[in-house]
């Protein structure tokens, strides 16, 4: 049990850090939360008896539930996600079923509306603040004014987009129903889901959304529908002004603006959403292509042109990004803050540093990644790391191995034990491949949605295997087997 606890602590380390701040937040949306909480309990029960992971999620939820009471906003996504999970399992709860059937969820709508309300209030405050400060700050009036203008514009756009998005969810269409069963999965677990770790991730996200609320002053957008539109705090910016310049880029303070995306935005697979039907896209070009289907007005050259180019006449500040994770060096509150250059950097940084490494290489079953591109890069070379040192380190290049051996005393090249028998790989490796294949097939059946009542069990097996490839025979895994 100690081990389990430790695991949980590790897994949920992020949330505990922000847990203290939670009580400050004001709950405005209790019904919505109750719904969610109820769902999550169902969820929890479901897993509890199947595997060790059940108990992991269980404990995490216990930790989570009290915190979430103070949560003001909840994205509708978790509901959808659990729907998905239920579909995978035949044991569907009645309550859940009722939740699932309508495509339009009034609670979610309410949720969204309250969010908008809050957002407008925030904007109001901001404008008040600007008005109040106008007389005080005379040092760089022009610059500040531009910044403030941008800020207000960004917030207004965000509100508009949110409003349209909320309205769009009311449009009934068969297409939407279909996409609702797939996109939520993508939105939360993303492509992680087929690898069998989607559950864990989604739970984590739900949970982290609780912690996110803590710095409500900064955050503006929970659902991530605004895409790249940013939350922005003027106080933060002023604080940054007083800080020293960054070593990395040597940009003078204030010469760039710091933007901070929230976790959901970072992890959301889609950043561009159709304002009419709500469909998400990764690229705005794809969105524009999609928009043509909604009417002739979207087919004009102006509508199809890149939107950002219009604003180029104004002097644009260099944008730099901050990681939302408190304590991270890439977080703007860090003493030696080093900003991230692009949104892509933010995404990769956040996934690599603050997310589970949920993609496991199917070849070696050892290396794990949180960014799928990293996995793909690794898989290209995996298995080619045939240069092995006696210390267990593998090298993809022979000269690197020899450099390593030349450097260290007592290290010697390791020769595969069955080398004399032929060029085939070591026998134990073969077993691993077998395991990997098995895992692969299970994954596949799950991902394709053809899983039945035992689907969840399978996932758990896979999870154990994928998560801890080194401990196939560890007691942890034994438990899994027993439960199964």
């Amino acid at each position, binding site marked *: 049990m100690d081990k389990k606890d430790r695991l949980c602590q590790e897994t949920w380390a992020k949330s505990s850090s922000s847990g203290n701040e939670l009580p400050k937040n004001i709950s405005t949306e209790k019904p919505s939360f109750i719904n969610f909480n109820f769902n999550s309990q169902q969820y929890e029960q479901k897993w509890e008896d199947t595997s060790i992971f059940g108990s992991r999620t269980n404990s995490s939820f216990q930790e989570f539930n009290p915190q979430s009471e103070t949560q003001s906003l909840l994205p509708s996504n978790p509901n959808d996600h659990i729907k998905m999970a239920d579909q995978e399992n035949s044991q569907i709860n009645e309550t859940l079923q009722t939740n699932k059937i309508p495509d339009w969820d009034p609670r979610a709508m309410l949720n969204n509306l309250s969010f908008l309300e809050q957002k407008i209030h925030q904007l109001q405050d901001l404008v008040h603040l600007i008005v109040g400060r106008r007389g005080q700050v005379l040092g760089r009036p022009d610059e500040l004014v531009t910044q403030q203008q941008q800020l207000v514009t960004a917030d207004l756009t965000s509100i508009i987009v949110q409003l349209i998005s909320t309205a769009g969810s009311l449009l009934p269409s068969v297409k939407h129903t279909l996409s609702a069963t797939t996109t939520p999965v993508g939105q939360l677990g993303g492509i992680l889901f087929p690898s069998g770790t989607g559950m864990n991730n989604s739970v984590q996200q739900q949970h982290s959304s609780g912690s996110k609320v803590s710095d409500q002053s900064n955050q503006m957008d929970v659902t991530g529908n605004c895409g790249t539109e940013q939350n922005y705090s003027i106080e933060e910016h002023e604080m940054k002004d007083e800080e020293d310049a960054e070593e990395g880029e040597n940009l003078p303070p204030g010469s760039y603006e710091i933007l901070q995306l929230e976790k959901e935005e970072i992890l959301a697979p889609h950043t561009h959403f159709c304002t009419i039907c709500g469909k998400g896209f990764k690229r705005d070009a794809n969105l524009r292509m999609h928009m043509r289907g909604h009417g002739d007005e979207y087919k004009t050259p102006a509508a199809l042109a890149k939107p950002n180019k219009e604003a180029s006449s104004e002097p644009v500040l260099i944008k730099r990004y901050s990681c939302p994770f408190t304590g991270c060096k890439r977080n703007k509150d860090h003493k030696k803050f080093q900003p991230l250059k692009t949104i892509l950097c933010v995404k990769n940084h956040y996934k690599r540093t603050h997310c589970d490494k949920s993609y496991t290489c199917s070849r070696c079953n050892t290396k794990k990644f949180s960014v799928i591109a990293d996995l793909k890069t690794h898989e290209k070379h995996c298995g080619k790391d045939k240069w092995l040192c006696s210390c267990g380190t593998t090298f993809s290049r022979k000269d690197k191995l020899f450099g390593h051996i*030349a450097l260290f005393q007592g290290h*010697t*090249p390791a*020769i595969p034990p069955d080398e*004399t028998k032929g060029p085939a790989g070591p026998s134990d490796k073969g077993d691993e491949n077998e395991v990997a294949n098995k895992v692969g097939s299970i994954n596949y059946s799950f991902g394709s949605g053809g899983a039945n009542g035992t689907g969840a069990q399978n996932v758990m097996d896979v999870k154990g295997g994928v998560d801890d490839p080194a401990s196939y025979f560890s007691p942890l895994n034994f438990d899994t087997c027993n439960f199964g």
Partner: protein
Amino acid sequence: MKRQKMTIEFDDNNSNKSNNNLFDLLSEEIVFAILDLLNTNPLDRKSFSLVCKSVYNLESKHRKTLKPLRQEHLPRILNRYPHISHLDLSLCPRINDNSLTVISNACKDSLRSIDLSRSRFFSYNGLMSLALNCKNLVDVDLSNATELRDAAAAAVAEAKNLERLWLGRCKLITDMGIGCIAVGCKKLRLISLKWCLGVTDLGVDLIAVKCKEIRSLDLSYLPITNKCLPSILKLQYLEDLAMEGCFGIDDDSLTALKHGCKSLKRLDMSSCQNISYVGLSSLISGAGGLEQLTLAYGCPVTPALANSLKNLSALQSVKLDGCMVTSAGLKALGNCLISLRELSLSKCLGVTDEGLSSLVTKHRELRKLDITCCRKITDASIAHISSSCGNLTSLRMESCTLVSREAFVLIGQRCQFLEELDLTDNEIDDEGLKSISRCSKLSSLKLGICLNISDEGLAYIGMHCSKLTELDLYRSAEITDAGILAIASGCHDLEMINMSYCRDITDSSLISLSKCARLNTFESRGCPLITSLGIAAIAVGCKQLTKLDIKKCHNIDDNGMLPLAHFSQNLRQITLSYSSVTDVGLLSLASISCLQNMTVLHLKGLTPSGLAAALLACGGLTKVKLHVAFKSLLPHPLFEHLEARGCVFEWRDKQFQAELDPKCWKLQLEDMIP
């Protein structure tokens, strides 16, 4: 002193009244002293050990080196000889892992050296047990172990005290295996990686980085480049570096080197096509102690090359075989070098009288000179050589065809310290031989294809050169029994004689040669007058005989083989092609346990079943040359069985050839040479 010891011994044995064998009274020290002197013939030790039990036991105790014939006997002989430190297995074609395990368990820590260069069928298992059990192993020769892989090299790496390791032609060993050895065998002083084609810069570099004690490094024919050179040249004690045929190393990479190797004494850069004097001078800069330089088949010998050797005061030996040579280059070489003792210009193109003369007049201390196939030189060169280099001990001048018969008289008159003289294919005549007979230290004389010499000249040699051990009369057609008789009666130490195609030789020559008890190599190809009688005489007289070639001696039949089988127990190699030997004779040879190499082509009386029986009976065969017709006549499993024993078959498909006239053959040869 001896008597004292004997009495002491006697006192000790007084209590034991039953002991009445006088030999038992000999002390251990005395027997050991006697055994130390019994080195010439292995059979002497054997017969000595059979004197009595105590001597037998003492001999077992005394013996340090062993050269067994078959692996089957290993457990018993190792049981008899507990103190073996050097084990030479070059006569055992088949040594499997089991044998190596037996060796390692029997010899344990006493074994210091093992030679597996001619053995096959062992793998890393055996080597591992050897390395783990024989902790004091210092020398391991694994040359020609073409089937060994990196795992075997890793096993060798367990021999932590290894100092000398030969891995020539271990083609399957790669950098990984060499890396293991580099890490494991830190005390390595010599490593030969010749023809280890799987070893590259990385492996060599690691050897140089990890084994700081290296004295001798053979990297010939490795696919190495300049990358490994800096670490090699940093080796503090490196004396001997061979980089023959390293095509990956060029001038550019050598000139980039900041410092040469200071400790270097011997450097071999033969067949390095991409290296000229520029790279060479960079490599040997600072190597003031360089003694021997081999640049065979390399860059042309020009004044520039000679200039780069200027500062090498210790340089004694230069080998430039097969290089393009200019007269100016030779002249400059003569001026730049200081104390040349040994020079080889064998097969060099462009060696002229002018160049050679100016060189030899500068180096009067020259001891060894090789001018084989320098076809342009004439009497003038020989005159200069003989007048300047009076201390010459070795002169090889095969096929210097422009040198006239008078020049050889000069050699005999002025170079009286000659020990080795190769006059193959020259114009020397009896007068020259008479003069050369004044070289009383002469031990090796090659007179092949010297068509002008006769018995008369040979008689002078036989009379005066009593130390002659090696005589080659190949195709010197004028030689008859009289000449051989003179040699046999004068040169008792004769070990090798070649009388091939001296058609007038008869049995009486062989009978006279049977007096030379040390004779081990006897070649008499194409002597049709020799019969079994002569061979029988040789077999009886020359017990040391190891190599016998009686190809095309049509009159030798089974009657010659029977005495051979009985007396020549040291015979290793026999060539019987075109003789009249049949199944019986061949089968009788099976009683010679050392017999390894057999060439039996065109034996009229040989039947497939007779051959099969003989092959099966000769247990130690390693190489057999057979006519391809037998391949289909004999069952395949038979060959498989023999190959598993370690025998290699070479199939020949030559037509039966009638012998050519010797003069006509010589003309043919001259046509071939440009």
